[in-house]
């Protein structure tokens, strides 16, 4: 007979439902929290509740935010003529860290992946199209989806939909990773790097 208290098995089950967490890890996390001070458990619980209560989706860029519109969309100093399309909120953070980009964003929340059954209608593509049609200040769309097959497919799909609207479209340059050796590069990367070469 399983004599584990219900509260313990329940938390194990909840952890186990999270991506990348197996049954062993779920048990370890649960027993860690069982032994941890009550404040720590409370703080975790509050963080979880706030995640759902305080986070909203920006109605302009569909990024996650504390307010709607988000801080970037509200920022008057940003260049409103250019919109950078990314797959995930984390990609916005990565691009912001460069301090090189001053335009706006649009978050798709994924990429086209027929293998996983993720099609164009599962992404925030319609929101992007509506936004472009509505807001005449948009002059350029930067496609910054991942340089893998899903990202490329998504970029090609967007190109097909947005090109007829007569807006300039650019794609992040794809090429050799910094710190890598040329001899290890695959042919797709090398071909793209050649295409994207520039004068020195």
């Amino acid at each position, binding site marked *: 007979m399983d004599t584990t208290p219900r509260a313990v098995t329940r938390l194990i089950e909840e952890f186990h439902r999270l991506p990348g967490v197996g049954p062993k890890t779920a048990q370890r996390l649960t027993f860690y929290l069982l032994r941890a001070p009550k404040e720590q458990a409370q703080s975790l619980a509050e963080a979880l509740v706030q995640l759902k209560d305080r986070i909203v989706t920006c109605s302009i860029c569909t990024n996650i935010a504390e307010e709607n519109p988000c801080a970037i969309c509200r920022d008057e100093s940003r260049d409103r003529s250019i919109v950078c399309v990314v797959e995930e909120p984390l990609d916005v953070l990565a691009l912001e860290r460069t301090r090189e980009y001053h335009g706006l964003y649009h978050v798709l929340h994924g990429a086209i992946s*027929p293998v996983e059954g993720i099609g164009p209608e599962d992404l925030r593509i319609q929101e992007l199209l509506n936004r472009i049609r509505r807001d005449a200040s948009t002059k350029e769309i930067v496609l910054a989806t991942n340089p893998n097959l899903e990202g490329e497919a998504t970029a*090609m799909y967007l190109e097909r939909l947005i090109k007829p609207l007569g807006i300039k479209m650019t794609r992040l340059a794809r090429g050799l990773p910094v710190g890598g050796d040329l001899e290890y590069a695959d042919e*797709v990367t090398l071909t793209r790097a050649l295409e994207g070469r520039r004068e020195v």
Partner: protein
Amino acid sequence: MRDRLYRVEAIVLKRSDFGEADRLLTLYTPDLGKLRAIAKGARKPSSRKSGHVELFTHSALLIAKGRHLDIVTQADTLDAFLPLRENLERLGFAYYLAELVDQFIEEAAENSPVFDLLLHSLQWLGEDATAPALLARFFELRLMQYVGYRPQLFSCVHCGAPLEPVDNYFSADAGGVIDQKCVETQREKVAEHARDLQPISLNALKAMRYLQTREWVSVRALRLNAETHTEVETLMQRYIAHHLERNLKSVEFLRELRASVSAGRQA
């Protein structure tokens, strides 16, 4: 431990994120059939492996046997099928071919004709002269043959008589074509093993026979009218769904692509 490392050539059929920055690959090999292996760090842009284990890449791999999962230690591209990656339609069909193989082939089941079929089809798919939808029909009929589900298109599956050059009936359930005579004279008996009986036109039957028996060099020149192609496509889709007992995800994607093309034309 002996034989800890082994060499394979493989086509990457599927990949999913695994752990922090790894990828779990579903590989299709000529000698070992379908197998799964981890490509460590393949999601990092700096990884020297990632491009060589990208989806639909034909690569030479060195794999280390692991306790739970095998690990790719070296990868070199043999063919990346570059033209496929630059055209959304063709890419959509590549997803379809790979999903078909993934669904019909069991893990560790060796089937080298299927490997060659997939390898060649990915090459052909990238060629400008190839009509991707025609290639898909050719691929479907060949694949069914290689996995033991060859539909009978030359004689009636009910009475065995050679088929007359007229409109007949087709049943995935019964495994092929049933002639008019059997359907008209023994409809109830036929229905027992052919619950999904549907008409097949003479043109569609001829096209399917051609696809089933000829090599791609001949098939590629075939020009089917839209009506016949749609009929063959629908019959094959039902035939495949009958054997898989499920629908393929990439079919939905191909449908969406078609819709977006017509939407783009209107815009």
